[in-house]
Every structure is written in structure tokens, then in C-alpha cells.
């Protein structure tokens, strides 16, 4: 699936629920489904320090595709990490760099998350794109 197809699928999934608590339940499910991040990836350079919770993000290349992994100590934040990984992981670096991430606004995550977390979300996305740019540069310079 393309990045946009995955985004649309997530939007449909969240659109099933009218009640915000149900949407949060879904987000929690996403958080709980995220594979635990290997301890060796929980290094300072992978850490995005927020005011309230911590996020680790790691990127690797497998078969020419960028594979992300990540974790957070708060499950709702982990849910966001999980969604971003679902959308962006296993695509080429160029696809990730070019991606227009619209699902966050569409499912109302941005407006319904407190400002500190919204910043965290923006920071996470930025970090994932930076990884892709770095991997892309590394790839083309080979």
C-alpha cells in the first residue's frame, strides 16, 4: 500500500467512532500493538524528550526500504508512534521525504491533543523525515 492508502485506511478506521473515548481506545490499541523497542535503540540520540513523556525513534534500512521502530513510556503517545510507523515504515526514503502527512489532522489527533503532545507529534514526524533524508543521502552517496 502507498503511504496515502495507509493514511486513508487509518482515517476510515477512526471515522467509525463518534465518541472521543472510543477513538482513544483505538489509539491505545495501536499503542499496545507496537512491538517493544530493543533496549539498544533506547540511546540518547534516538530520544525525543517532551515535557510529559519520552519517545524513542529508530530507523534502519531493510531491502532498500526505511523501517522504523519506536516506543514511548506513555501508551497514548505510543499509539501515535505506532500510527506514524504504520504509515511511514517500509517505504523508500524518497517516498517518506515526499510524503504529505494529512491523517493526523483528518482524525482530529492534532486538535484534540494537548499542545505539549501536539509538539511531540510534530517533533516525531520531523525526526522520522530527518532519518529518511539522512538515509537517502547515505544511499545516493554510495
Amino acid at each position, binding site marked *: 500500500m502507498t503511504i496515502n492508502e495507509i493514511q486513508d485506511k487509518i482515517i476510515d478506521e477512526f471515522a467509525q467512532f463518534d465518541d*472521543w*473515548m472510543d477513538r*482513544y*481506545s483505538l489509539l*491505545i490499541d495501536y499503542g499496545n500493538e507496537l512491538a517493544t523497542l530493543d533496549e539498544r535503540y533506547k540511546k540518547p540520540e534516538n530520544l525525543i524528550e517532551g*515535557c*510529559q*513523556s*519520552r519517545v524513542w525513534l529508530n530507523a534502519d534500512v531493510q531491502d532498500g526500504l526505511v523501517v522504523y521502530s519506536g516506543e514511548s*513510556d*506513555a*501508551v*497514548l*503517545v505510543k499509539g501515535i508512534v505506532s500510527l506514524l510507523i504504520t504509515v511511514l515504515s517500509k517505504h523508500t526514503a524518497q517516498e517518506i521525504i515526499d510524503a504529505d502527512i494529512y491523517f493526523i489532522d483528518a482524525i482530529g489527533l492534532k486538535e*484534540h*491533543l*494537548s499542545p505539549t*503532545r501536539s509538539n511531540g507529534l510534530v517533533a516525531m514526524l520531523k525526526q522520522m523525515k530527518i532519518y529518511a533524508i539522512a538515509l537517502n543521502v547515505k544511499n545516493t552517496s554510495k
Partner: protein
Amino acid sequence: MIFDTTKIRNDFPILADKVYGKPLVYFDNAATTQKPRCVVAKIEELYFHGNANIHRGVHYLSQKATEAHENARQTVANFIGAAASSEIIFTRGATEAINLVASSWGEKFCSAGDEIIVSAMEHHSNIVPWQMLCERKNLKLRVIPINHDGELLLDEYENLINEKTRLVALAHISNVLGTINPVKKIIEIAHKHNIPVLLDGAQAVPHIKVNVSELDVDFYVFSGHKIYAPTGIGVLYGKTNLLDQMPPYQGGGEMIQNVSFEKTTYNSLPFKFEAGTPDYVGSVALATALDYVQSIGLEGIATCETELMRYATKRILEIPEVTIFGTSAAKSAVLSFNVGKIHPYDIGVLLDHQGIAVRTGHHCAQPLMDFLKVPGTIRASFAFYNTFDEIDTFINALKKAVAMLL
């Protein structure tokens, strides 16, 4: 309830608001309190009909504004039992008041090798200004440890005192644990060694009767916005003999007696410490808030908040995974807790979506979080306008959040 809560809640329009379509339950009073109509009306009245810069003009309005500002100073002095209104310095808040003392008093009375005592339960506001002073003047910060109920270890405190100790700076009430510290005793011990004491009263003044003369405290600070007044106004109380010896904190208008390019002489107390145009609207609004609190009565407020606290504590313990932080018998209306291993932030967000405003995180007390070995806590803090019904709503919402997260 000992007073008419319905009537009181009408004084605070925000309490009737809804968030996400749910009635607002405001349990973040330790961060800031809501403002009664009389305070906001006073601000409007001053700007619409009483506004002129103070202490400068001979004109009617300026005199009227000056009088209001100085009357406000007297109201504050009376409220905390200060001997004279000149011992009341208006600041931007408790933080600025502590910085003023650290900067001015610290400059004059501290030298390399000296020590400042704080406690393990301090807000960053009562840590960082002293650390900055320590760096500037090569002093040492000593920390009174606490026990697991969140109480100061007084024996350890006495052991920390030595001939190098210059000041004890301490929270009157902890913003995380709610512990009401035995400040009278702490001051007596410090004074035996001729050491002055600064109390951070930000969490105390709104909840219990404070009398600085009875306490014999040397410096006392608090913020207006935590006692139903606007943000940006706060108070430093200092004993005259100390304030007199301290150099000015900031230079500018108002704080001078005479300025020439050769030499400037400084104004007398309290003006020496109020450089620039003071927040005279803020000071008068603060006095209005203090009058409001007094009209309700601090004794009644304390009783009401204790009842709310007792009920909330009882109900929250219905959730078996709850751990409460701060279990001192002498405790104010602050309920800090965690639920099992759930991150406080997750609970905070899910409570928020049910209309409940609590604080989550480290509460600007990271050293205390380290001691408690938690990344943060959830803190519900009460004011006299809160109700038992709101606590029920809170507990139901909390149970729902926990069910989703556990």
C-alpha cells in the same frame, strides 16, 4: 458544607463552562485559581475610571490610583499580619520575589563557602534562584531530606545547620505532596543560630491563615494568581531591618530618591524594590481578592477544603492500584497519585476529555520526582468552590480511564 457553594460558584463564571461538551471540573487549583467576578470587575473599573500612573502626577486620577495601590499594600500587610505596609514589596509573583531575595540579599550577605538550606520537596522556583546564587558566589546548597509520608526529617535539618549556613529557604506547603511543613519549629531552630528563614507561601496563603509576625519569619513570598487574583502580581514580605540592608534589585524609575550622573540615591522602603511603573491594577485586584477570601473566611475555606480532600482520598482508594504521594497528617488540599504503572500523562489526557482538569507531570519539582522514583504524578488540587459531586464525577472518570489503560 459550611457555606453556600451554589452562591459561591456563581461568583466564578468559568465554573459553569463546558469543555468537550462536558461540564468543567476544575481540579488544578494548585497551579492557578479561577477569578471571582469582583476581581475582574475591579480591574475593569480601574482601567475605565481609575487609571493613571501612580506616585508621579499631582492630578486627581494619579492621586486616586496611588491611594488605591498603597491601600492595597496595607490590605496585604493586614492579610498576612505584617507589622508595617512598607514591609510588603509587590513583585510579579512568588518566583520573582524569591529571585529578588536571592539576588539582593544573597549579594550582600553571602560569600564563598557559605551554605543555603532548601528541602527535597521544593518547587523549582525555590531551588534554581539559590543554585544561581551558589554558582555566582561559590556557595553550597544543602537539602533537607524527607520521609516516605512526604515529611521533612527535622533531625537531619538540625544536622545541616552549621556556622556557614546563611539562609533556610523552604516551602510552607508542598505543591506536590500537600504537606504543611512545621514552619514555626523550623524558624525557631534557625533563629537559635541567627539564621534567617524564607518561606515560599504560594500554596499556603490561599488555604490557611498565615501570620508572618507570629511565625517570626524573615521573608515570606506568595503569588496573587493562586489566591483568586490576576497573574503577574505577587508579594515579598521582608522584615524591615533585612530589607533596609539589602541593595536594590532592579534600577529605574520609582526606586530612586535622586539621580545624577555622578551618584544616585535610592528611595526608602518599599519603593526601593519597585523599579518602574508598578502593576497598580494588579495590586488593587489582589487586595480585592484578599478581601473576597476574607469575606468567605479562611477558617471556613480550610474546613471545606479538608472535607473535600478527605472525601476524595477515601473515594480514590476504591481503585486498588492507586498510590497516593504525600500522606502526612498535616496536609493541604493537594491529592497527588499514580495508578499502577500507568503513565500519568495517559490518565491526564483521558480525564481531560471527560471535562476534568488536573495537572500531570513533574509539577516543577523534578528532584522530588527522583526521590519518589516516578516520572511524574497526577495531581488533583481543590479550592472551596469545588464540590463533592465534582469529586464523584472525577472518580467515575478516573475509573473509566483506568479501565481503558490497565
